């Protein structure tokens, strides 16, 4: 009886370990790309293209594993030991946080790749319901009484910080760089926000599946995804008169690639984002390409819009983060729990 039990237990254990073995086995090159929420579809397509490319040029099979989540949360996970070979996050500040809190990558990471290490750009647009019943045309319309605005929480979401700064930038332009007026404008806007989700995907779900709100402030690529995948004819995109140039940054995580011995393939992976093929995939997923020929080819897909940049309008991410999103920043001052 006793021996029987032991035999069963040992068999189960051995069987279990055999099952577990493939989980840890590394028979080919693998990369881990830690990314933010709305890039799921982009990297699904890009990883496949890169694997083909690498097989042809290097002869090795490469598998790229993906992890997605709110940008700030993902940065935190890398800081806590999630062994990303590359990070592709929503904004430079989140990669700055990794460089600042750890020595995984150098502080000047952003200068290592072209275009501020942002191989594709995006902007913030409005998504409204069919026929635009509240007649929303520009940022002004968002503070009208009775208009419900859906945006995620700028404390946790990268996209939300771009939303916030775009609104602020619009107000600065309108009132000749008067910060007090801009603050009042953004406060009025957030007064019209019924739900603050923690990430961009959460807000999209609130707007699309739970049918809350009149307008969703969204990444341009996310808005197109909703338009083309979730409800053809149910939504419309409104491009405001002014928006912000959002530059989602990518970076190599030096310490991790050196430990994994994957530096060469990880560098090639990021470089490939800048290639014609990579840019094409970005454009197809509604990210604005940086390469002129691809940008020209897809020009009709993107509305031309007056874009302000974070460096010109806000003096860079570090300053913007301090003034607006850190504790007791403007967001804390204007957003009171109703």
């Amino acid at each position: 009886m006793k021996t029987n039990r032991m035999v069963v237990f040992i068999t189960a254990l051995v069987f279990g370990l055999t099952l577990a073995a493939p989980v840890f086995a590394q028979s080919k090159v693998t990369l881990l790309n830690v990314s933010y929420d709305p890039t799921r579809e982009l990297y699904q397509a890009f990883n496949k293209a890169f694997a083909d490319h690498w097989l042809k040029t290097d002869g090795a099979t490469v598998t790229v594993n993906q992890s997605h989540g709110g940008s700030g949360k993902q940065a935190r996970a890398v800081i806590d030991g999630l062994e990303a070979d590359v990070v592709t996050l929503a904004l430079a500040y989140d990669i700055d946080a990794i460089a600042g809190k750890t020595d995984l990558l150098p502080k000047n990471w952003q200068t290592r790749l072209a275009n501020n290490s942002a191989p594709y750009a995006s902007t913030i647009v409005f998504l409204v319901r069919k026929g635009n019943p509240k007649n929303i045309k520009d940022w002004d319309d968002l503070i009208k009484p009775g208009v419900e605005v859906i945006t995620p929480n700028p404390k946790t979401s990268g996209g939300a910080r771009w939303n916030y700064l775009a609104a602020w930038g619009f107000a600065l332009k309108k009132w000749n760089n008067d910060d007090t007026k801009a603050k009042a404008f953004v406060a009025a806007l957030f007064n019209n926000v019924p739900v603050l989700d923690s990430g961009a995907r959460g807000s999209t779900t609130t707007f699309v599946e739970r049918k809350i709100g009149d307008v969703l402030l969204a990444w341009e690529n996310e808005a197109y995804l909703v338009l083309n995948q979730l409800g053809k004819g149910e939504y419309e995109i409104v491009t405001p008169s002014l928006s912000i140039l959002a530059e989602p940054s990518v970076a190599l995580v030096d310490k991790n690639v050196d430990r994994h011995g994957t530096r060469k393939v990880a560098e090639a992976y990021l470089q490939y984002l800048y290639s014609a093929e990579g840019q094409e995939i970005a454009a197809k997923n509604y990210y604005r390409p940086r390469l002129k020929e691809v940008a020209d080819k897809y020009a009709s897909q993107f509305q031309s819009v007056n874009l302000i940049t974070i460096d010109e309008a806000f003096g860079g991410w570090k300053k913007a983060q301090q003034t607006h999103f850190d504790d007791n920043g403007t967001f804390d001052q204007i957003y009171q729990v109703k």
Partner: protein
Amino acid sequence: MSQLNARTEPRFVRYFLITIALAFFALFLVLPLVCVFHNALSKGWVVYFDALKHPDAIAAMRMTLMTALVVVPMNLVFGVAAAWAISKFDFRGKGLLLSLIDLPLSVSPVIAGLIFILLFGAQGFLGPWLIAHNIRIVFAWPAIVLATLFVTVPMVARELIPIMKSQGTEEEEAALTLGASAWKTFWLVSVPNLRWGILYGVILCNARAMGEFGAVSVVSGHIRGLTNTMPLHVEILYNEYQSAAAFAVASLLAMLAIVTLIAKSIVEAHIRQGQK
């Protein structure tokens, strides 16, 4: 007499109360369950099986099974040992042990996950040492097992303690006076008396281990195909607007719940019989 008293309420009141109970049950349990299966099959059987056959889904299932396969036996051993010690013996610190067993029930699963990040994370207490020795715990399978172990610790022990207490110590005392060794007494007297109780605890522990979301979400790193469990995979699919696929995987978890319920009621019947 008491049974007669229980029926003296007017028929109207009895039916009214029964209707309320059943309506509540239907609204909060049956309806969501039906909803899961309805959504899972909303795009047909092909989409349903494709969702379950997807490599990421299979990896998630394997991760969940692997975790349960390690966690449940460990909790079984710990649960029986702890319950045995608590219900059959008196010792110093018994109250403390009881409270410690209950601790995971009173701690939010998210905190449970964070504990392991603080302990084993790169910035954590043991992090630098682990990195230096190339041991990966957080954002990998070991942390998922640890976090699940933490939340499921009370499941077996909590079920066994009341049963063991109600059985008293007479049979063990008899065995010991007749010259049996402690080991023999445990295997031949205590365990057979408890087998249904143990099974009951194992069923509950397994259900919790496979269904745990919060604690695992914190430590998993969400690497698809590698460190996602089934509940995490459901969330990912839902966030990718693949509702049918998300509900397909969720329907597996729902079926697990139904099987658990059935197994639980069978075992409960046996326990009641044993007590009579």
